[in-house]
């Protein structure tokens, strides 16, 4: 395959996959929503879940984006240094977004800051967002795709606590966000929490936490325990679907962490809405791909 053909092939796959994720929710999200739906017993929560599942079916049937806010496209790539398209990757991701925007169609969600105009094609300066993790001595590439909707970006928050505030401070930081903004972000939510040293390290981790499959746990025992405590605590607040009341508020709480400076605890929270449009696709050096997030996707 010539470079040009390879680039076109990967662009087409990513474009089709991004479009697909706007219409079909990932397997883990569907399974979790099905579980939460069966555990709610109030008629209002039941009706809201019925509407959500009807929408999931209709989106599939009519091949239309399930939510009108198809978000800003964000990619987290784990790219091997030996991946043949490493040099072309960032440009081809942008091209793939342009393609998906006209084909699916996706909403035009890129507004240039300061000049304040909508670019009209869903890409702009730094949009799509691409975060790189370089993997030495590997020739494959993994791509996480994410549609960041307006409503579910709003609760996002990061700050640096003093160690005296402790993990108790982390708890309050997360919990306060749930009742102030979380309830308008279309619960049940997936909550990502970063615990690190400065604002940006914590913030980045809180986003990466959303990429973890629902049901996975932090490998540190205490962190995993805190995930469970926060999950139970936020559920007990009783936000329910759409924040209108119910037994469950979240699909899960994921914490990602690093070491910290002795004088700081960087903490951040990021939420995904029930319509969690994230995808995970993996390429080998010959551009054979496997999709980890959605069973139904084919080219």
């Amino acid at each position: 395959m010539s470079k040009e053909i390879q680039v076109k092939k990967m662009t087409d796959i990513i474009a089709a996959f991004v479009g697909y994720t706007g219409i079909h929710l990932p397997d883990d999200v569907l399974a979790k929503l099905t579980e939460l739906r069966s555990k709610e017993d109030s008629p209002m929560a039941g009706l809201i879940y019925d509407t959500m599942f009807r929408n999931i079916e209709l989106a599939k049937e009519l091949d239309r984006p399930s939510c009108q806010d198809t978000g800003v496209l964000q990619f987290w790539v784990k790219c091997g240094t030996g991946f043949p398209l490493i040099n072309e990757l960032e440009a081809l991701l942008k091209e793939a977004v342009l393609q998906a925007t006209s084909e699916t169609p996706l909403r035009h969600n890129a507004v240039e800051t300061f000049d304040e105009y909508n670019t009209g094609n869903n890409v702009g300066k730094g949009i799509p967002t691409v975060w790189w993790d370089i993997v030495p001595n590997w020739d494959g590439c993994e791509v996480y795709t994410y549609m960041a909707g307006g409503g579910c970006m709003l609760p996002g928050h990061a700050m640096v606590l003093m160690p005296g505030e402790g993990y108790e401070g982390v708890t309050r930081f997360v919990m306060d966000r749930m009742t102030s903004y979380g309830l308008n972000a279309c619960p049940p939510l997936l909550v990502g929490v970063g615990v690190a040293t400065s604002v940006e390290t914590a913030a980045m981790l809180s986003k990466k936490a959303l990429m973890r499959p629902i049901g996975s746990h932090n490998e540190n025992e205490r962190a995993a325990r805190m995930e469970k405590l926060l999950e139970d605590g936020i559920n007990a607040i009783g936000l329910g679907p759409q924040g209108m009341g119910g037994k469950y508020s979240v699909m899960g709480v994921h914490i990602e962490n690093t070491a910290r400076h002795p004088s700081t605890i960087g903490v951040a929270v990021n939420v995904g809405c029930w319509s969690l449009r994230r995808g995970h696709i993996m390429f080998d050096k010959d551009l054979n791909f496997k999709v980890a997030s959605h069973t139904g996707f084919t080219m």
Partner: protein
Amino acid sequence: MLEIKDSKKILTTPISAEDLKDIHTGDIIYISGSLTTCRDDVHRRVVEEGLTIPIDIRDKAIFHAGPIIRTLGEDHYEVVSVGPTTSMRMEKFEYEFVKETGVRVLVGKGGMKENTVRACQEFGCIHCVIPAGNAVVAAICVEEVVDAQWLDLGMPEALWSCRVKEFGPLIVSIDTHGSNYFEEKKIEYNKRKEEEIAKINKEVGFIK
């Protein structure tokens, strides 16, 4: 007009203040008839600039939403996808807006506050939410786009007047009797939040 069909409460435009009397927060209703999208810029034009809204919404319904519209021909449009936007952004305009326009039903996402509660009580109006993220369910309730005005505001902000059939489900969040579902819920949520924080904090004293 309010009718009950297969145990569904359906409000059909034109709607009178009388029709809203027996509707309470937490009720589930549907709307048939005229529903027009009205969001930030339309509210600002009507309330701040004093312009007359070019589509008559008296005794009808508005939707805080910016749709994806497909143009099918001259003055001929289709709603591809539509869903609610956060109603709270319209809060500061809503009292004057309801007073000025005579609208009876506001549909959006999340709660609103005292201005809207006051408007609903004084002028006979309700605020409802439609479960968000369900753009396809909402779009297929739209039978026809009957009028489009203020297109200079751009696709999301323009007035799209739709004929809808059993548009919903809508959950009443502010009624004509002064009740506000979300504000009442928030008190509950905040109380439970404090209890849960106290519980969690007993177990996370990791810094010794």
